[in-house]
């Protein structure tokens, strides 16, 4: 275990049923200021891993620590240190964009002044200024996804768990998101990002964790994974293909 890790998972096994765990002895860390790509085929266990981190599922074995704290030790500190962007937007139908941001800021104890500055900047970056007082039910799917992203970013925790954030976003939205993630990373925040668009995340993530059938089959920087796959200089997409092919 590394004391400086923002996220530290040791020997995690878990799933929906005790007899059939989805995750098998997973260990991974995310360091401060690091963006880590969690990649795998459908059903590899990416979302289940994230659910365990978020506390939506309890590990059958192993430990999860966020900033050195387990959820059962200090739930408020644990949850206060992370923000989540789900694959499909989950919004309160009865709240406007602004109210979602404000609720998040209040929950994360962000000062009113910081909230106002951040909300203004995020609305500008994601081009949502004219939708700020619109109810979430009246937004398109891409806009709803932007609200999810804005909510996570208004909280400014130490760790972001981001699941397939590019789904439904327009090209400008994807660019804004990537740029903002880089800015956050430079500011010391950590990001665990899951995506199937490997060509996009290849240039942004510092490290990658390859999950296959609930196990970590490779992890490290692009070069390290290329070495593990025995294919130096090859793009991530091809490396991933080589790593998972024939493992069924």
């Amino acid at each position, binding site marked *: 275990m590394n004391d400086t890790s923002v996220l530290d998972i040791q020997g995690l096994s878990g799933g929906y049923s005790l007899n059939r765990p989805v995750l098998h002895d997973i260990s991974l860390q995310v360091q401060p200021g690091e963006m880590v790509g969690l990649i795998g085929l459908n059903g590899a266990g990416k979302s289940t891993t994230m659910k365990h981190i*978020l*506390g*939506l599922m309890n590990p059958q074995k192993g430990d999860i620590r966020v900033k050195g704290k387990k959820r059962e030790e200090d*739930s*408020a*500190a644990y*949850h*206060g240190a992370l923000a*989540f962007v*789900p694959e499909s937007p*989950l919004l*309160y*139908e*009865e*709240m*406007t964009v602004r*109210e979602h941001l*404000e*609720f*998040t800021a*209040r*929950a*994360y*104890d962000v*000062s*009113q002044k910081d909230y106002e500055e951040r909300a203004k900047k995020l609305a500008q970056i994601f081009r949502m200024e004219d939708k700020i*007082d619109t*109810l979430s*039910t009246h937004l398109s799917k891409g806009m709803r996804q932007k609200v999810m992203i804005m909510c996570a970013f208004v909280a400014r925790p130490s760790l972001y768990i981001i699941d397939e954030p590019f789904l439904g976003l327009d090209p400008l939205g994807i660019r804004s998101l990537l740029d903002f993630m880089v800015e956050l990373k430079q500011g010391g925040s950590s990001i665990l990002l899951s995506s199937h668009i490997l060509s996009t995340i290849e240039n942004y993530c510092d490290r990658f964790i390859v999950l296959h059938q609930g196990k970590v089959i490779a992890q490290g920087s692009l070069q390290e994974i290329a070495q593990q796959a025995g294919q130096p200089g090859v793009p991530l997409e091809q490396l991933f293909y080589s790593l998972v092919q024939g493992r069924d």
Partner: protein
Amino acid sequence: MMDLSELRLKRRSRFWGEVLPYLGYVIQSGVAVLTLFLIIAFSAWYTSLVQHIPAGLPIRWIMLILFVPLTVNSSFRTYMQSADTVFLLPQESRMNQYFRASWTSGVIYKMIGVTLVFMVSWLLYFRADVDPKPFWLFLILLYALKIVASIGSWKEQQMVSKRAYSSYRLLRYAVIALALAAWLWQPAGKSLIFIALLVAAYMASLKIPSRHLVAWERLIALEKIHSGRVMLVLGWFVDVPGRQQRVYQRKWLSWAGNNIPWKPQAAYRYLLTKSFIRSDILGIVLRAAVLGALLVWWTRGTMLGSGIYLFFIFLIGVQMSSLLRYHSESFWLTVYPVPAESRHTNAVLLAFQIQLMFALLMWLPMLGALKSQMSTVFGTLVVGVVVCALFRFFLSRKVPKDEDDE
């Protein structure tokens, strides 16, 4: 080939199969006793009213106010689902088969309601009106207008333009109100001719706007509202999981909640306040409060007035108690660092404050009797505040479901 009427029947059985098990709990919750009590109380009051009809009772206005909403309101349970836009779309040209039963049951059940109310109100109308219309002719006219309103409502749902949809809804209310008013105030023959012409013009006008063959999205949205209403009513008595709330924008109230203290302990109150101001519950509570205030004004200074006042506070308290069930399955409340214990305390406090506010507002009309009945007026307020406090006490003792599970 897919049997569409069979599909609707299956969906209907599934929906009511989910609802029926809750009815036992509803009856156990005392609603049967309360309903029986209300029927007995109403019967006693109504009998006395029919026997001693006050002079100058505006019976035509009463009949108009009673029957316009009953005749004009039309809704159809289609049991449609979001996935229908994909899986039933290829059957669009045959969807009449599916909707036939929706239409028939939508009209027939409401006609039974109209008949019941008409038979009860007839006793009063027949005695109070100087020139009452014939019983059968009146009832047949109500049936005919009900069918016209149902046709209008069904066609409105198919209209392409949202503006046409809203305008024709308004037109339907106007046509039915005008027809009923003509019937109540004018001689039968003359008014029937007028109604026939009015209805013919209305039916012809329904042909003007362009319509979808099946307005999939609107029908699905309306079905969500209808099923949500059933669940909402059940939710007054039992915990119904995952019920869909209808959302109203209510821009005029968007300021509410903005001054809540800026701290995590009050974050849930912020969410709850925003949810409440855009919920069905607020509409119900507002209507109850307005009706309560009017009745209190009418009976001010009497024991009946105090009873009505307390009954409406109780009714609002029951409605407000549903705040405790809001967001019980919210994903974000699991992920966000909102203090777990703050949810229950915030919900109880908000429900109490809103109930208390309405208790004070509904009491104001009683001040009209302050000079003659000062002790009754202030005594009623004190009892009203005690009722609110009792609600708060019992709600605070209610253990939230998740804590109970733990």
